[in-house]
């Protein structure tokens, strides 16, 4: 028995039908074609599926799709403004903060959530906030540099 869900994804009205056991991640990827949100574990341990629900950072694999009803969802596809990258995305590229790139969408969504909550984080605060996003390639050094640089640019209104 499918459920009808009305939601808002990246500021666009979206409707879908889903099974009660389906996660938000499943629907984003397999029903709505929003494959920028990645699945690394399906158990909330890796952060590759980080999205926001009503502004709150969550793992889409731990949210049921029916819970999206009436909510505002933010995914990686909504971070850039058409063809112009968000400063966080630019800084990730400038600092070579991605190698394979599979964790990058989740990390960018998490970084945006961090900087909205705390525009002036210390390096340690950034490291703890992003501890839910695993990256196996970089050792995090360049990610943290990108985050700190982006934070500074955003504070300066760049």
């Amino acid at each position, binding site marked *: 028995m499918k459920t009808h869900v009305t939601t808002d994804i990246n500021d666009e009205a979206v409707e879908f039908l889903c099974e009660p056991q389906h996660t938000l991640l499943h629907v984003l990827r397999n029903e709505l074609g929003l494959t920028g949100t990645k699945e690394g574990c399906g*158990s909330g341990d890796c952060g590759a599926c980080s999205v926001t629900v009503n502004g709150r950072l969550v793992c889409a694999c731990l949210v049921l799709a029916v819970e999206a009803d009436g909510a505002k969802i933010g995914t990686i596809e909504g971070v850039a403004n058409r063809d112009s*990258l968000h400063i966080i995305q630019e800084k990730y*590229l400038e600092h070579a903060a991605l190698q394979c790139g599979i964790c990058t969408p989740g990390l960018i969504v998490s970084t945006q959530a961090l900087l909205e909550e705390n525009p002036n984080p210390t390096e340690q605060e950034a490291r703890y906030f992003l501890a839910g996003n695993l990256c196996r390639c970089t050792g995090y*050094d360049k990610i943290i540099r990108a985050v700190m640089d982006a934070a500074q640019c955003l504070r300066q209104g760049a």
Partner: protein
Amino acid sequence: MSEAKQYKYIGQRTIRPDGFDKVTGRANYGADLSLPGMLWGKVLRSPYAHALITKLDTSRAEAHPDVLAVAGFEDFPSVNAEAFAAGNGDSGMLDLARNILADKKVLYHGHAIVAVAARTEEAAAQALQLIDVEYEVLPPVMSIEQAIKEDAAVLHEDMFTQGLADTPSAPSNIASRMELKKGDVAAGFAQADIIVEREFSTPTVHQGYIEPHATTVRFDDNGPSMVWCPTQGHFDVRASTARLLNMELGQIKVVASEIGGGFGGKTTVYLEPVALVLSRKAGRPVKMVMSRDEVFRASGPASASKSRIKIGAKSDGTLTAVEASLYYEAGAFKGSPMAPGCMTVFTPYDVENMWVEGFDVVVNKAKAAAYRAPGAPQAEFAAEMVMNELAEKLAMDPIDLRLLNAAKAGTQTLYGPKLKEVGLVQCLQAAKTSEQYQTVLASGEGRGVAAGFWFNIGGQSSVIINMNSDGTGTILEGSPDIGGSRASMQMMAAEELGIPLDRLNPIVTDTEHVAYNATTGGSRTTFATGMAVVEACQDVVAQLKSRAASMWNVTSEQVDWQDGSAINLAGEDVMTLAEICAAAEKTGGQISGRGNINARGAGPSFAVHLCDVWVDRDTGKTDVVRYTAIQDAGKAIHPGYVEGQFQGGAAQGIGWALNEEYIYDDNGIMENAGFLDYRVPLASDLPSIDTIIVEVPNAFHPFGVRGVGETGIIPPLAAVGTAVSDAIGLPIETLPCSPPRVLKLLQEAAK
């Protein structure tokens, strides 16, 4: 000393050409492709570590209304044990087939038995429950000690140890033994004033790529069948799949999706041949995606190891003899990285007398796969720990001890060649003068130093560069880009052609658009595929010069190429690349260059790492407080991504040293098959990782490149191990130095 060559693009920190897609979520990875009419495939896996399958009945699953196909071992019609190099491992096709769908016997928990394809994921999962299997459970063999016992349960009745003077008459779990020697170790140890000998062990660990294995395939009777998958080598996926399914190479097209990490673990096949069988039977496309649990249980762990190291030295620190016995777990099928372990273990040092033996041992764990410098971290960990103990006993600085014995140009390696120019001495000197080494340790902190060596490889790469009439061009390469290699290809081509970076678009093509490329592995891509790019550029330039010559009515020899333009040496004329391309239609057709090579002369890369830790004596938890990775890159094409390789290797090595390990229960079932309990380093676990790029050019590469991808994972194990040992004042012989293990060491010492 010659002056460093001035480059326009090489050495710059450019923005990677695939970057936009990767930061916006547009890039498509393994699980991102869906096709119309696609079915979902799922695998039934063994609940036992070691068992005979006494009954297997899939009829109830086949009767499920949503199930369209079932595949089993019998669907690989023509496998045999003939050696076949697939990826980095030399696994027989029979073993490969038996690993991806078991043949009457299951050899590890999670071993694939049969696969089904159904209309939905849910139906596929239900169908697995309808398969009737009965087992005769056998005792699991879960460690080297257990496996090599006389009365151990034998995994393979047809395995007789290779490499002994006389092949034994009884089967055993030791697949092979090897031995390497140089000089006379007995005489060398007799000359020593001091000898240190110790035994070590390292755990089973996983590469831990964030992207699970996945594939979407479409079998086609009328043309090439399509396989889409994230892999380090799509040409080798094609070769393995074709062999298993008895197809011709031309009947399969493999498209390499973007790849979400591999580290050696995506150099073999698990799902692709199975999915193609299902697709053939069902007549529909099939998608398969592993869960994280399946990734841990049934894909690529790196070998656990046991080792014994003995090093003798004169009182001034000169090494007189070194000796090692190295045991590697291969997992369920033979083929651990025993050989590279034996070949690398002592290569950082120039020693007259060396002796090394290695053993390849099968156990009831998933078949080990390559992991970044396969075999070297386990072996060099042990050797470097003993080097540090030796330095301590001699009251020498550990860097000075290494400088005194460092391998350099002309050093005769144990495994064969004499070294050409290498950068170990320069790395050691850079370590000694580094900011970290000058920093005085705080109370409770410990420091470790370690060196690392990896060969690097070259191999076959094939590149085509197609020029367009407006002077832009496309670089078609066949090396999956796993950490930014498109950027280095673009930079090398722009440098060689003399045109701006954004005029060139590097594309990783499928198996149909360029000739064979060896798998991205062995730190080969920027070296070998880079050489192929340069060769293709030289082909393009030769054609551009010839076209300009024809327009100027001179010979090609009278035309020079400088900064993206042809210059008429017989006159004043200059013509840009874009102008020549625009005239191509009238001068003989479009311009396209080719570089198909088998690259030789990969320069080895040495590294030295420094690690400072603080250990909490109440909990046994170790914090890495400072870390510096120093490595010879030959020439860093893109310094940002070179540093990234150093840092990523360091982080994986720190994880291996401090926390990562497979934990099994008494029945051989892994208890921590998820990222919550198999803890890879988090952002909050690590400090900044400082880097120093040493550049001792490799004479065999046009820009001096040495591969940098792998060496960086080797030194951390001993750098961390020694730092922990230094902090707690106790020897470390077993990895990981996880909190419970360190706490136990402290408590036992306090008794």
